[in-house]
């Protein structure tokens, strides 16, 4: 989170409120002019001397979804409450620290375990020399980390050149088209339908003494499908992950309702990050985000998280869930099957794209893959671009 600007001169409440909206904007809230205006109007209706009133009123006006609603507390405290410090807790922490100091004179205050129990704001205040040394060490390691990251970024640029990007985009276009609509057998009234709606013609002809003056038509409705992609970015998938990210980014560009999740040992929703216009930028941003995590793959756990948190909101009968993973799992394969079964109960189509399947003599031996195959509508290889391009036909059939 960005730190709020400190003001030396006491300014009017209105200008402070404006500063606060800028602070929110800087921290990722999309505040509109209207919301600023409404906040100013809202001032009239609350007790300004009570900071809690102030907070909940601003929260009602400025928040617009669950995420912002959850984050508002922290933002508010950092701006209006002097970096979130509350007097009582500060006093208590001071006492705690003093006690600790007396008990363990030789040890530094912020030994790793205790450091966790102290909140950040307190640690800023109670720095002693040891801690400063510790922190400078930390920043050093950060610098080296970002240096490596920078290197990776340049690698990535070489990895995805313009030509490849265009080919991927073309494949994506065709795939998105093939799963754009849900097929339906039912006929619905439509102005330019392909069949006559006799029932309606007869009932409407009553008004014209039984002459069917107007012909009503019907046809099969086109129900838009939504795509949810769950992408494995664990170590074993690393070589493919950039290409798949570009692929997924293409899907988001074509259909704005596409949802994207990444996982390795845990799941994260990255849909909003992918709405960036520049493909390369978006892919870079995400790889920066996820660079910190590495280690095993927990497909089951990630799917569980998806089922618990997101699937209820984003998966229904009109959804195609595309899972891209090689199926190598460090967790239990039983969970994978259980979670896929749960997901299947939401009546969606599940497609599993496995880059290993393209290899010769590969049979899905990974235990997770075996457990999963029962619940899949399509299990297809995707280790080369040709495979991705050929997916179209198979996707039409599901």
């Amino acid at each position, binding site marked *: 989170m960005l730190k709020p600007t400190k003001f030396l001169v006491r300014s009017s409440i209105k200008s402070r409120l404006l500063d606060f909206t800028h602070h929110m904007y800087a921290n990722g809230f*999309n505040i*509109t002019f*209207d*919301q600023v205006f*409404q906040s100013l*109007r*809202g001032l*009239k*209706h*609350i*007790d300004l001397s009570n900071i*809690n*009133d102030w907070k*909940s*009123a601003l*929260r*009602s*006006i400025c*928040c*617009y*979804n*669950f995420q912002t*609603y*959850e984050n508002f507390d922290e933002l508010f405290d950092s701006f209006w409450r002097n970096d979130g410090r509350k007097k009582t807790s500060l006093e208590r922490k001071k006492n705690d620290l003093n006690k600790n100091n007396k008990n363990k004179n030789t040890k530094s205050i912020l030994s790793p375990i205790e450091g966790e129990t102290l909140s950040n704001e307190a640690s800023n205040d109670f720095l002693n020399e040891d801690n400063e040394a510790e922190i400078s060490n930390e920043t050093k390691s950060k610098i080296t980390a970002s240096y490596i990251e920078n290197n990776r970024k340049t690698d990535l640029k070489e990895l995805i050149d313009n030509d490849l990007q265009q080919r991927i985009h073309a494949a994506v276009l065709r795939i998105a088209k093939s799963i754009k609509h849900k097929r339906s057998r039912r006929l619905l009234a439509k102005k330019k339908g392909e069949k006559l709606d006799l029932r309606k013609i007869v009932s409407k002809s009553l*008004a014209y003494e039984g002459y069917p003056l107007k012909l009503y038509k019907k046809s099969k409705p086109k129900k838009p499908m939504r795509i949810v992609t769950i992408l494995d970015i664990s170590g074993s998938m690393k070589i493919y992950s950039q290409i798949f990210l570009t692929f997924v980014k293409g899907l988001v560009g074509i259909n704005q*309702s596409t949802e994207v999740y990444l996982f390795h040992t845990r799941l994260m929703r990255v849909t909003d990050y992918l709405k960036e216009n520049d493909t390369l930028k978006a892919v870079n941003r995400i790889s920066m985000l996820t660079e910190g995590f590495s280690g095993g793959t927990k497909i089951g756990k990630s799917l569980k998280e998806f089922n*618990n948190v997101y699937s*209820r*909101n*984003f998966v*229904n009968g009109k959804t195609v869930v595309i899972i891209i993973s090689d199926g190598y799992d460090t967790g239990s394969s039983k969970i994978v099957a259980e979670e896929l079964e*749960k997901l299947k109960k939401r009546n969606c189509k599940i497609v599993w794209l496995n880059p290993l399947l393209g290899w010769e003599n590969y049979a899905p031996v990974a235990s997770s893959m075996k457990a999963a195959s029962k619940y899949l509508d399509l299990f297809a290889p995707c280790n080369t671009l040709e495979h991705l391009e050929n997916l179209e036909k198979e996707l039409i059939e599901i």
Partner: protein
Amino acid sequence: MQWNEIKTSLYDLDYIASEELAMSIHIAINLERPLLLEGEAGIGKTALALTLSKLYKTSLIRLQCYEGLDASSTIYEWNYQKQLLSIRLNENKNDNNVKIDDQIFSREFLLERPLLKALTQKKSPILLIDEIDRADEEFEAYLLEILSEYQVSIPEYGTIKALSKPIVIITSNNTRDLSDALRRRCIYNYVYYPKKELELEILQKKLPNIDLELSMQIVNFVQNLRVQDIEKKPGIAETLDWAAAISGLGLKDLSDNYKVLHSTLVCLLKTEADKAIISPETAKKLAKI
């Protein structure tokens, strides 16, 4: 009315609102903005609208959203049958002085659907747009004009402006993302599952004949159950049902009879998988925590 007055008057009407919610209502009413409530099912979003209509002694106009909802069933529709009849009747009269167009496109031939009805009331009604996430995205676009300008434009007739601005409550179970345009026009509140104290208060208020000890046990059990790894977490409505069931069966203490306790869990657990997870042993454990 200040927000704490709203809270207490809602309390008198058996609705216990959190401070955040009371403030949101206060702000929404004063700024004349719709109030958008999101949250899990069964935590009193719809009940709030019902209670507010009692509080302001005004009518409640409810629009239940579903897929395929369109303007003709939510805003207005011309009464075609009546128009046809009217044309027929005028044919025989041979009276050319009255222009038939003006006549059949008058207010008399207009069927008011909930949204238009809400704008034509003398006293501001409560307009409840329930489960808006079930309606299509196009429907949100219809709503925008009504919610920001409080008016409806009818091509054949003209614009109908609100006689009194309705208090609009929109609820959503978050089954799909609402458009930003709609969100920004609303005062937003996310309704969480109630905390222990609040839920106890609600239970005591709604079912006063259950004694405090048992109520505490019930609330404890439900709160513990929500932490468990189950598909469908019980809301307040379920807690109340279950409490009624338990007191109806004459249990004085949850630990009295675990068999009965487990059989009453049908009120709380709504899927087969959840029932399997909460076995009699687990239920026993949850009751003891």
